[in-house]
């Protein structure tokens, strides 16, 4: 009897092939996870090594001069660095109020649920439009439409260095507009997500002591959601800095430095897109140097975004 019971409940050891497979699976996934690190390190190493020649030759001068002279082998990326920073920051200044306003509008109950859902969906679909299509639209539709307005600005505020040249076509200003259109959905959707995560009790308490709707939004909801909102803004900044196609198509691609927003300029990514194809030797190295600068800039912004989100996030 005892043996019978023993047979019935005998412990079956796992066959060796199953153990082997179990271990192998774990190792494979570990290797795949390590691939991410490998890809990242490869990117950094390749860009760094390819740019070494230019770093040795031009050093810090590369950042502060703006010659781009393949005949005399003199390269400087100041115009491109300036263009990258100015265009992304200006786009951010336009997109932050618009994005935040939209996010508040679709989280508050101003309109029935369905209308707000449709607006939210549209903003997210805007994020999905390929940037090259936005660039095409910017060249043929947006820029000719908006040019007269730029020229009005130029006529009245021409004494300001920012508006000192006439808008005749592609330039920094249309690039800023198209960049702000591109980063708006990022800011809106991240801000909406973080506003939606604020517990409704907080706002109900504010209403309870007599706050108006906007009092509650400004003093309660936004401070509570600030970590997500700042993270979203920084992510958008990183995206704006690295954005290539739409900007390349509309910025005019000139290495001539000009303070005016209406004259053609460069960003680092459009410099790469434009020149990399026909570059050789030291010019390739210079472009890689510019790419390295761009990568460091986006890296700093992205790391700061992650750090800020952690630092500012409140727990309820």
């Amino acid at each position: 009897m005892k043996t019978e019971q023993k047979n019935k409940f005998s412990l079956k050891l796992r066959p060796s092939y199953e153990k082997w497979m179990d271990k192998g699976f774990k190792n494979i996934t570990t290797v795949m996870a390590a691939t991410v690190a490998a890809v990242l390190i490869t990117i950094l190493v390749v860009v760094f090594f390819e740019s070494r020649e230019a770093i040795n030759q031009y050093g810090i001068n590369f950042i502060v001069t703006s010659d781009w002279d393949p005949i005399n082998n003199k390269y400087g990326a100041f115009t491109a660095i300036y263009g990258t920073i100015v265009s992304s920051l200006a786009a951010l200044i336009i997109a932050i109020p618009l994005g935040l306003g939209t996010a508040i509008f679709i989280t508050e109950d101003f309109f029935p649920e369905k209308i707000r859902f449709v607006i939210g969906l549209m903003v997210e679909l805007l994020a999905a439009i390929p940037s090259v299509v936005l660039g095409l639209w910017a060249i043929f539709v947006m820029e000719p439409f908006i040019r007269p307005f730029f020229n009005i600005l130029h006529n009245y505020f021409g004494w300001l260095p920012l508006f000192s040249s006439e808008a005749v076509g592609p330039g920094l200003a249309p690039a800023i507009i198209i960049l702000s259109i591109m980063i708006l959905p990022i800011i809106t959707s991240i801000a909406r997500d973080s506003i939606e995560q604020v517990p409704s009790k907080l706002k109900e308490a504010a209403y309870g002591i007599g706050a108006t709707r906007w009092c509650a939004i400004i003093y309660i909801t936004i401070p509570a959601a600030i970590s997500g909102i700042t993270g979203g803004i920084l992510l958008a900044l990183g995206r704006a800095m690295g954005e290539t196609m739409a900007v390349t198509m509309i910025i005019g691609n000139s290495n001539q430095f000009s303070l005016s927003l209406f004259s053609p300029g460069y960003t680092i990514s459009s410099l790469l897109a434009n020149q990399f194809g026909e570059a050789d030797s030291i010019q390739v190295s210079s472009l890689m140097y510019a790419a390295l600068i761009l990568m460091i800039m986006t890296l700093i912004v992205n790391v700061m975004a992650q750090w800020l989100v952690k630092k500012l996030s409140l727990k309820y």
Partner: protein
Amino acid sequence: MNNKSYENISSQLLFNSRGKRNISNRLLTLVAGTFAVISITPLILLIAYVLIKGGSQINLDLLILEPQPPGAGVNSAGGIGNAIIGTIIITIIASLISIPIGIGAGVYLAEYSKNGSFSKAIRFGTNVLSGIPSIIAGIVIYALIVVTKVIFGSTFSGIAGGMALSIIMLPIIIKTTDEGLKLVSDDLRRGALAIGASMYTTIMRITLPHAFKSISTGIVLGVARASGETAPLIFTALFSYYHISTFQDIFYEMSSLSVLIYNFALEPYKEQNELAWAASFILVILVLILNLISRLIGNTKPS
């Protein structure tokens, strides 16, 4: 006298639509509404323009033929057939590389890692990788693959383009897999392990199928993103005016819709520009459909 002061207070308690706070309240609502309208206006204008301008040119010839080089076409600029095929092939190559690696890495992060420094570094690296400008992916693949000719001596090729796009897709897939697996309840995992399943069986039979919805959402979004990317392709896949005819053609220059739009938008010829509009029509429809599919997957109830 007592009565009077009560009246005073009660009149203050009534809703006064001319009160400062109520006026500013209405004003801010108006501002937010205006901002929302401004935000969606470009999208509506853009989609309407692409649909009307691009959609009006779609015909069977355009979908099948090869494009004519600028200036060569007398009456028409040809079609975008090879670009449609090229986009599909390059995206498939990118998916074949990034989906297995992405899901594997996501499984490692969600199932095996114990919040050690390695997995923290990988999560951080994934975030950094998703923030790297797409053009950098293009020039790195150019330096590694195209210049060195490591892949059977081919220079610009569809394979190189697919590899550059896979760098873009990888972090998207890792993140959604990781997050999808984290949402699977731990009870299911413990239940499976308690009745004697190995980790491998638990993951393959229990957790992965349960996270299928969010993982496939991520894959579809990654494919949508990759199919619209241009910057990684302009130095890797380059462009071609011809249809592919044999399998070997993936080792040569390959056209894609996005590069076609970029190249032809900057041409001075009207025929080429119109081809670019037609190509954007196809690309926008493709990307919007993929996005709606991912939404539909996300909204279906788990079986």
